Every structure is written in structure tokens, then in C-alpha cells.
């Protein structure tokens, strides 16, 4: 690890984080720059048209599968498979859920089991939210699309407010830790850790082989998978907040599938298909979350060898993660970034 024992090596970690970010930014369907910047011209081969045609085909296959499932129950398996793929690919495009979970994982104790657990829980909550919406509003109350749209809008406002509040709390914690590490670095004294700072202080007894003995301020331990990681009540509370903030707003695709299944008189098939979608979503989001965890782990390892400055960088990274959560919440609630929209009803 000697070669990493200079603050400049942090740049390497940044590159890794950038790569992880780029991977989850790589949305095959989104070829243009955001915010109205001039989109890249589609290649002469008509790639844009091809993507369009493929997506349209996929959506048509999904609705055709629902029709088939109505006529022949065994066709439902094809529908579940398509739904699973839809969930997996749909989640591959960057959305606020993945961004919030990834930013949260960077900000707060990032471990792979936590990443997987959070992703799965968020996808499950999102499936339940869509089922509850269409099940209660449409099936039981006979509500119109407009009423459902308004309900979704309220859920959105709730979810985005939760994201902001959650980000603020996270930033408060992580900002303090950042300041402490900064002061420690400037004064050359190890930073005092507060008792409530549940930064995986357990399980110190195993060796990580990354200059632990020099690392007196216990900077951001990123352990390998272990059940212990899922304990710790402070983390669990914040993790649950993240899951709800992300999962409360149902995905439009699930609402559409459920509404169509309901119109075909096979609502339960739609429910099963929504869960298949959630499995696909969970897998993709978990992969992205794992990338965020690995990136932070590498950054932490690099920082461990570089005395106080690396520590400041890691705390800064965590603080930045918290700020990004706030930023996402603000952008979402002000409508500056639209999460999802259907045709206006």
C-alpha cells in the first residue's frame, strides 16, 4: 500500500468513483445531454430509431402477454419473464431511486449486504405502492386516472420531502464528522469519535491489511459481507428512511401493467407481474449499489494509507453524498428534474 501513501492517490479513487458513476449513468435509452443541451445527433445507422422501435416492441410484447395470459393462464409465465426483464432494464436507466440509494451508501456505512438489502427493500416497497394504488383506487374505489395521478403526485411530494429531510439529517451528521476530521488533520491529533457515530466500530478484530495500525481515527471501515453489518440501529433507521423515500412513489410501468391487467379482468396476474418487475429492479439497483460500495471501499483503502488528508477526503466524500441526497430531493420537488410522467390526464 506504500504507493498509495500520498494524498494525490485520492485522485485515483475519484476516477474509480467516476467510473462507477458512469456505469450507472450509461442509459442506452438516454443518448442526449440533460437540461436541454444539444442532443448528440443520432448515428446515420438510425440508432435512435432502432432503440425507439425496440422499446415500443417490448412494451407491445408486454401488453400482448397480458392479453395472452387472459386467454391462457400458462402464458402468464411469459408475462412474468417479460416483466422481470422490464424491471431490470427499466432500472438500468438512471432514476432518482438509484441515485438516492447510491448517494446514501456513499454517505453512510457502505457495505455490500446493506446495498443489496436496501435495493431489494426499495424495489419491494415500490411494487407494494403500485399494487396498493391500483388495487385500492381503481379496483375498490373505481377511481379515475386523474384521481390516481393526483394520488401519485401527493406520494411524490411526500417522498421528495422525505428525501430532503433525510439528506439534511445525513448532512448534519456527516458534516460534523467531516469538520472533526478536518480539524484533526490540521492539528495533527486523532479525531475524537462520538459514541453515536455508528461507523462499524464492531468487528475491529479482523485484519484488513490496509495500514490499520497507522489509521488511528478509524476512517470509514468498509468490511466485507457479514451479517453484523445489517445491525446497528442508527443505520437501520436511516436505511429504512431511504427505502421509503425511494419506494413510496410507484413506477409508471407497474401502474400501467396493473391497470391493463385490471381492464382485462386478471388483476392478480398483474400483481404477480409487478413483483416479477420488482425482482428485476432489485437486481439492477443492487448491482449499481454494489458499484457505489466498491468505489467507496477502494477510496477508503487508498485513504487509509495517507494519514489525515485521506481521512478528510473520505469524510468529505460522505458529506458530499449527503449533500447530493438533499440536492436530488430539491430538484425533484421543484420539478427541475422530472422523475416520471405519463400523458397528462
Amino acid at each position, binding site marked *: 500500500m506504500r504507493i498509495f501513501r500520498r494524498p494525490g492517490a485520492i*485522485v485515483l*479513487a*475519484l476516477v474509480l*468513483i*467516476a467510473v462507477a*458513476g458512469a456505469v450507472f*449513468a450509461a*442509459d442506452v*435509452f*438516454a443518448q*442526449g*445531454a*440533460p437540461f436541454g443541451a444539444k*442532443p*448528440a445527433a*443520432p448515428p*446515420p445507422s438510425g440508432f*435512435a430509431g432502432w432503440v*425507439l422501435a425496440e422499446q415500443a416492441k417490448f*412494451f*407491445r410484447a408486454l*401488453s400482448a402477454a397480458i392479453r395472452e395470459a387472459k386467454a391462457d393462464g400458462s402464458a402468464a409465465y411469459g408475462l412474468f419473464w417479460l416483466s422481470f426483464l422490464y424491471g431490470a432494464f427499466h432500472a438500468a*436507466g*438512471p*432514476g432518482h431511486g438509484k*441515485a438516492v440509494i*447510491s*448517494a446514501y451508501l*456513499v454517505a453512510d456505512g457502505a457495505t455490500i449486504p446493506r446495498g443489496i438489502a436496501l435495493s431489494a427493500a426499495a424495489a419491494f416497497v415500490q411494487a407494494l405502492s403500485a399494487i396498493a394504488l391500483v388495487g385500492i383506487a*381503481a379496483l375498490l374505489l373505481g*377511481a*379515475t*386516472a*386523474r*384521481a*390516481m395521478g393526483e394520488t401519485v403526485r401527493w406520494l411524490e411530494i411526500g417522498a421528495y420531502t422525505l428525501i430532503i429531510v433525510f439528506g439534511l439529517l445525513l448532512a448534519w451528521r456527516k458534516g460534523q464528522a*467531516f469538520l472533526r476530521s478536518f480539524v484533526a488533520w490540521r492539528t495533527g491529533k486523532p479525531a475524537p469519535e462520538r459514541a453515536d457515530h455508528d461507523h462499524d466500530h464492531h468487528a475491529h478484530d479482523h485484519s484488513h491489511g490496509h495500514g490499520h495500525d497507522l489509521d488511528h481515527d478509524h476512517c470509514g471501515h468498509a468490511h466485507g459481507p457479514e451479517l453484523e453489518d445489517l445491525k446497528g440501529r442508527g443505520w437501520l433507521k436511516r436505511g429504512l428512511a431511504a427505502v421509503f423515500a425511494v419506494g413510496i412513489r410507484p413506477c*409508471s410501468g407497474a401502474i*400501467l401493467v396493473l*391497470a391493463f391487467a*385490471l*381492464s382485462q379482468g386478471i388483476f392478480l396476474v398483474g400483481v404477480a407481474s409487478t413483483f416479477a418487475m420488482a425482482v428485476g429492479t432489485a437486481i439492477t439497483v443492487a448491482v449499481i449499489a454494489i458499484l457505489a460500495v466498491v468505489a467507496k471501499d477502494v477510496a477508503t483503502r487508498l485513504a487509509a494509507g495517507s494519514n489525515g488528508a485521506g481521512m*478528510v477526503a473520505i469524510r*468529505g*466524500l460522505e*458529506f*458530499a*453524498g449527503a*449533500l*447530493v441526497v438533499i*440536492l*436530488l430531493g430539491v*430538484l425533484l420537488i421543484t420539478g427541475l*428534474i*422530472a422523475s416520471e*410522467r*405519463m*400523458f*397528462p*390526464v
Partner: protein
Amino acid sequence: MIRGPLKTALTAAVLLFGTAAANAHPHVWVTVKSELVFAADGTVEAVRHAWTFDEMFSAFATQGLDTDKDGKLTREELAELAQTNVDSLKEFGYFSFGKSGGKDVTFGEPKDYWLEADKDNVLTLHFTLPVAAKPAKGEMTVDVYDPTWFVDFSFAEKDPVALANAPAGCTVDVKGPDEASTAPTNLSESFFNNLTASSQFGSQFASRVSLRCR
């Protein structure tokens, strides 16, 4: 030395900010048929749209609207939805972007709007968009697209466009997304500059109706 953390913060922010914003993929597919309606003086006075939605969105949109529970949706049962549609479409500029003589053609409040459902309860929204100011004679284009690409618009394969009361010598054609964005050869320079300056994400998927009159 503060550059490390600061740089980290900026990198993380830019990445997450950018990626969340780039999230765009359609959930609703609309098949468009449009008609250019001419005034007596030979200029276009309105665009008459007929937009057919995909069956999943149709099922969602018609939820709870079959008030007499006969499984069929009448124009009356759909009247309120049609009203909501055209009201809220205003915010999105009716997803219709007209150009004529290098200038934007703006549209007024829609007229003659209604929704009809076919035997599978697939919805078609009919509405007429009057032009607010007279466009130049004999040359006009209309792009139909959602800049944020949550709704995918594509023209029907059969009879995508038509002309009503057109003077002799006028023809109209439709170019699909790729042709429209890569083959602007028969458009004036100023038109293309305008398009580039104001175009947004979804414009690369726009289909363009082009009117030419001799």
C-alpha cells in the same frame, strides 16, 4: 490540500445530478395522424390532430370512466377526460411545434376536441389546434414530440398526414425521427439554426410534417 475533498464532492455531485436528470424513456406511445387545414387565402389556419394511445395507457386513462358499466366507452363518458387532456396539454405546448418562414408558429386554444374508444377501448384524442398568427404562405413544418420524451409520438404508417382545403400545388410529407434530424436539407438555414438552438432531448425523436406549396 483541500482540493481532494472538494474535488470529490464536486465529482459526486455532478455525476449524480447529471445522471438523475438524464432519465428519460417513454411510458406512453402515441400514434399520430395530422391534417393541415387551410383558410380561404391559402394559408394554414389549423392543425387537426388524431392521437391514438397504446392499449396500456388507454386502460389506465379510462379507469373508472365506464359509468354505465356496459364495457363500452362512449364519447360522453370520455368527455371529461378529453377536457382534462386538452387543458393540461397547454402546459406542454400541445407537443406540437410549428415553424414557418423561419419563425415559430404558435397555437391557440384547441377546438373541437373529443375522445373516442375503439372496440378494444383503445383511445384516440381528436383536437384541432388553430394557429395564433398566420404562417407564411406555402411553407410550414410541424414537429410532434415530447421534449422530455416521456411520451413517444410517431406518425401512423397509413395516411399519417392529410391536407384539407389546400390550394393546388401543395404537398405534404412526414419524416420519421432519423430522417427528420439528419436530413434537414430542404429546410432554410434560419429554420435549422432555430431548431438547434431551441431543441431539447426529445427532439431527436421528433417526426416532422413538412408542407410545400408551389
